[in-house]
């Protein structure tokens, strides 16, 4: 069998070689050179440019139609809603620019496809036009800058909420740990030299403020309607705390503490009933069924979003947004379960 395949391959190569010889020999016979672009070439390629433009724009709309609903659900945080609005405005702007300029480009390619009888118009410059398309983008971009920075300052400013919740996210290869400050409202200082099996987040055991800190693994809870201020640390390499449903992301860098704050607006229970989420989960569960996986319920997630080693793709933690009462109940239960303080 393989001998036949080998024979076929050899014959194919010989045939190809002979074909090339014919092409080369026939060069001398032709009037126009092979490489010269003829009127017929230009006509065909010009039309192909037009066809490509139509197919390209159709492809774009097909993708939007088919995949727009795979996007993340509307933001579940206060600032996230602002981001979503800004995003939509920007996307509309760039989509319009994308469609119009690509259309004009390929339309010109078609309309001005060359032929031996035509002559081009000698049009080297026009200062008014240059002004126009320098100033118009500049003005549009000014608006984008102003709004973007306004929101950025609000998002990045220190929290002034009186009832803020503080949570530390501690990243290491390859999992997350959440730490709460406990009744004193202060997180204990950290000291990486004191990391042990029990003290896996490296708390400074001499700091009294840390004695009532609470540790959570696998999942952590935050209350709806209260501002949550995350402080992030890392044990080994750069990680990134990515909480996409809340439009939140911040690198966790060894040697520094980084911060991000947001106020959740939908509890996990509410989110599960939200029409977009319901539709999204239906799609996900349909895909899962094809793979014989059981259906799942929606959950908020914390993912790692900075390359950090072989299990980069497998570092996640569940986030639960509780009502204020449920949150209090959960937090009090942790205290009972996992006291951390290492008595001196």
């Amino acid at each position, binding site marked *: 069998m393989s001998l036949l395949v080998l024979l076929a391959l050899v014959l194919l190569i010989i045939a190809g070689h002979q074909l090339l010889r014919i092409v080369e020999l026939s060069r001398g016979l032709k009037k126009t050179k092979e490489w010269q672009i003829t009127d017929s070439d230009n006509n065909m390629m010009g039309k192909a440019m037009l066809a490509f433009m139509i197919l390209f724009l159709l492809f774009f709309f097909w993708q939007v139609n088919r995949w727009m609903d795979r996007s993340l659900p509307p933001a579940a945080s206060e600032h996230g809603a602002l981001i979503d609005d800004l995003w939509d405005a920007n996307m509309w702007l760039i989509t319009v620019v994308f469609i119009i300029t690509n259309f004009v480009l390929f339309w010109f390619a078609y309309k001005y496809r060359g032929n031996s009888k035509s002559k081009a118009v*000698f049009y080297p*410059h026009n200062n008014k036009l240059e002004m126009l398309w320098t100033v118009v983008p500049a003005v549009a*971009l000014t608006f*984008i800058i102003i709004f973007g920075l306004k929101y950025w300052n609000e998002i990045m400013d220190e929290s002034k909420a009186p009832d803020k919740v503080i949570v530390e996210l501690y990243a290491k290869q390859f999992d997350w740990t959440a730490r709460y400050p406990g009744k004193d409202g202060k997180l204990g200082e950290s000291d990486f030299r004191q990391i042990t099996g029990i003290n896996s987040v490296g708390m400074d055991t001499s700091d009294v403020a840390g004695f009532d800190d609470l540790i959570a693994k696998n999942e952590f809870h935050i209350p709806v309607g209260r501002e949550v201020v995350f402080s992030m640390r890392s044990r080994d390499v750069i990680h990134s705390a*990515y909480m996409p449903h809340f439009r*939140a992301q911040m690198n966790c860098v*060894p040697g520094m503490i980084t911060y991000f704050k947001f106020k959740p607006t939908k509890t996990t229970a509410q989110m599960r009933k939200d029409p977009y989420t319901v539709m999204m989960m239906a799609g996900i569960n349909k895909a899962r069924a094809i793979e014989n996986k059981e259906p799942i319920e929606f959950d908020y997630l914390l993912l790692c979003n900075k390359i950090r080693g072989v299990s980069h793709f497998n570092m996640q933690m569940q986030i639960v947004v509780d009502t204020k009462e449920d949150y209090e109940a959960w937090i009090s239960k942790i205290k009972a379960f996992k006291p951390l303080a290492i008595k001196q």
Partner: protein
Amino acid sequence: MATTLNTGLEKEHLEHHAHVHDHDDHHESFVSKYVFSMDHKMISRQFLITAIIMAIVAMTMSIIFRMQLAWPGEKFGFINALLGDKWGKDGILDPNMYLALVTIHGTIMVFFVLTGGLSGTFSNLLIPYQIGARDMASGFLNMLSYWFFFVSSAIMLTSCFIDDGPASAGWTIYPPLSALPEAIPGSKLGMTLWLASMAIFIVSSLLGSLNYIITVINLRAKGMTMTRLPLSIWAFLITAILGVLSFPVLFSCALLLIFDRSFHTSFYLSDIYIGGRPLDNVGGSPVLFEHLFWFLGHPEVYIVLLPALGIASEVIATSSRKPIFGYRAMIGSILAIGFLSFIVWGHHMFMTGMNPFLGSVFVFTTLLIAIPSAVKAFNYITTMWKGNIQFTPAMMFAIGLVSSFITGGVTGIILADSTLDINVHDTYFVVAHFHIVMGLSAIFGMFAGVYHWFPKMFLRMMNKKLGFAHFWITITMAYGVFFPMHFLGLAGVPRRYYTNSNFPMFDNLVDINEIVTICAIIGALGQGIFLFNFFYSIFRGEKAPQNPWNANTLEWTTPMANIHGNWPGELPTVHRWAYDYSKPGKEKDFVPQTVPLEEGEEDGGAH
């Protein structure tokens, strides 16, 4: 008088150099002609062929990891055949090797293909030709620049075969991941070899760039004022300046990393516990690395893009039979992009934990850089308006470049806004953006350059039908690979994930991943058409005439033979700019730069 004496000697000196040296004292051996050549034309071919080989390697790597992403856990004989039992056991890609492939793919494509292959090839080929010089200012430094590039490529490829695997911390190699061998196997010998390779690459790049700058400033032919230079030369000149100013910073960045890795310093390291013990290093910051890296990293992408844009200017003007629209504005845009590229690097760092105020500054400067980029795109389109477009394969790729420059550029506006970047940083939205501007736009510029200047490089013509086929397969498949990635980013899919099946929230994205991979495979196979056309035509292509595209620039006035010194007699004298296409009152639709101005005729490069 002293001045007359000097002028007299100077004139004699110039006349002496205007005639090429007699060849009897210049006997070339095989080694000096083909291996250690100091002729810019040979060196450009060397750069091109090395870059093509590197591109084949990097593209194959991308097919391997795309197959893993579309069909995780599926067994592929292809993967086992290429990676062996260690990294491709049972035909499944090993997770460590996944990160290694992603890293080396990025490194090769950005540096070796799009910097070495674009600047190295076309700056070398075109600068002496288009300014009317015999060769580069220093043929020796030029030769060294290629051989350092070759050694650097060899080391990078060798690093792929070592036991612990090549560098795996992403092409951006952030520490501590890249500094600590305990963090990932690729950070052992693999990372050391990567740093060695890049250090040598930087030397190669600097040697080349210095040469290009000096040549353009000093060796222009008589009459070739700066405002008569073709836009390709302007682009190569500014690119070279960017390189000279920014690559040394990468060198320093890499050097500090070498110190941290080998000499127990703490430039980038502090408060680390790994491998079961706390490390001694205190006081350093990974954010320092990020600043130093991106100080090069951002100009680097313009080092990649500007030559492609310069090539596009030439190809579009020549093929539309029209002057490039807004020559002065195009020069201004190149200068503006060049300058601004130095003050935007922080937009890669919005989520690093750096001071948010600093982030705001970079939002402002990054959005500014959109303006000259937009001007260039609009000028290309206006050049085609009312043109008489000749669809050479080069022109088609140039049109593809403009399309993808716009498509990729507009998503850059989203990413430039730090607020919007919060949710798409390090997701596939970013991957889509930079691949469309680099893996479409820049590489299309490279293809356009190859198709357009192949006659000058190899004295033969490429096959046009294969060129058409190559173009259509490439543009359709390339968009098919990278456009869907925007939607993955909108769904929150992070970069550099070995698989998405660990996250139920991504279970409904399998079909998108499959379409991406299938288009990638077809697109990769389609490049075979180009490779065949390219290599076949070098040896058996139809012999090229002197000026196949009826272009104006000086390279088309040299005879069709590879002679040392380019012009057999006197160097050409330039009388006009490069863009007198379809000028009214002229017999033909092009007027080469060497044709003197008629009585009362104005030079386009003068106003």
